[in-house]
């Protein structure tokens, strides 16, 4: 049976070690850290500012802020939570400067997008309305749906990159970075219900992409 393989937070000892290495000037550690969080930070920034170019500037400013504060980082929150808070701060400041006052929640797609195309289910006038016309694939039985398979991961990454910033942010924060639902709600100032709808939509799209690739 498949269990959720959500990436966990770094154990405290690992993180203390990483911080020590960063403070010690370990360039590799710094580059790896940037690579690990860049995608999420960019997505979050794009929900606050108009253009991707400006969002990239915001992310860079955030990293500068991380360096400026790194000596004083006490580890009361996790490193990634702290980094993200700096990013959100920079993004909001820049957003205000741009007179971007559209609240995050309203950036979500308006329509009620179904998780699966309605044609795949029996119609409202059919017997057993709402049931699958044909079952989706049984990935548990397919050997090439190995998570380790580079192609599968690449498809997932492409699918995420194709999501609008709002959806991308939520799935990245929850499923890539492993932030909790509460943390995401706090960082984005959305309700739990709202966050869940966004997560649902994002995951559904990514699943559909994986399905198209694997069963297609």
């Amino acid at each position, binding site marked *: *049976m498949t*269990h959720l393989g959500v990436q966990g937070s770094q154990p405290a000892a690992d993180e203390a070690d990483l911080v020590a290495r960063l403070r010690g000037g370990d360039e590799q550690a710094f580059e790896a850290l940037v690579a690990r969080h860049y995608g999420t930070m960019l997505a979050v920034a794009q929900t606050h500012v108009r253009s991707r170019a400006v969002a990239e500037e915001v992310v860079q400013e955030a990293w500068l802020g991380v360096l400026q504060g790194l000596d004083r980082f006490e580890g009361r929150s996790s490193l990634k939570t702290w980094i993200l808070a700096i990013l959100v701060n920079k993004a909001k400041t820049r957003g205000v400067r741009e007179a971007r006052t559209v609240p995050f929640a309203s950036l979500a797609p308006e329509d009620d997008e179904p998780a699966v195309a309605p044609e795949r289910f029996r119609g409202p006038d*059919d*017997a*057993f309305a709402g049931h699958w016309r044909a079952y989706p694939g049984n990935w548990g039985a397919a050997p090439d749906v190995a998570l380790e398979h580079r192609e599968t991961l690449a498809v997932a990454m492409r699918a995420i990159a194709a999501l609008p910033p709002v959806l991308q942010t939520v799935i990245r924060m929850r499923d890539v970075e492993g932030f909790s639902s509460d943390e995401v709600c706090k960082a984005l100032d959305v309700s739990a219900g709202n966050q869940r709808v966004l997560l649902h939509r994002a995951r559904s799209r990514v699943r559909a992409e994986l399905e198209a690739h694997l069963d297609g």
Partner: protein
Amino acid sequence: MIAYKFLRADGSSVFTGFRWPLPNGAPGAWVDAPVEPCRSGIHACAPAGMPYWIGRSLYEIELAGDIVEEGMKLVASRARLLRPVAAWNDSLRDEYTRMCADRAHEHALGASPQLPEWDAVIEPSLPEGPALLGFVAARIAEERGGVDAYRAERDLQTAWLVERLGLQDGAAS
């Protein structure tokens, strides 16, 4: 409290994959899980719930600690498997499946107006087994006679199971 639990063929839980300590001449080890609605707790059912939870293998389970009723299931904080209900074998599963299919046909075609579109689903569903056919029969019954008919069909399925599995005296044979 004695109840029943369906597991997969390998003795793991259907929804969590948890591997149960299986009885082997003697009851399996006790398992503890705090009861948190929708989050944790050990699931089992009384005979009335069995048609809803039909699985590959069936066990008699002893529940202890905090026990709550939630819909068609029981949720307990402590339990152990007492013995397999051996009567629930492939042959009986097939009989149950056939029984449900026959009743489904009866509901679909046995009265006017007939429901041929509903009937058409029955035979192709057979390979998917007893859990599905139980639903199909109850669902077609509901199409005929509403929610009461759905529940009545499920009760009939329970009665069939209780009788064929020998659960009347409270102990599996």
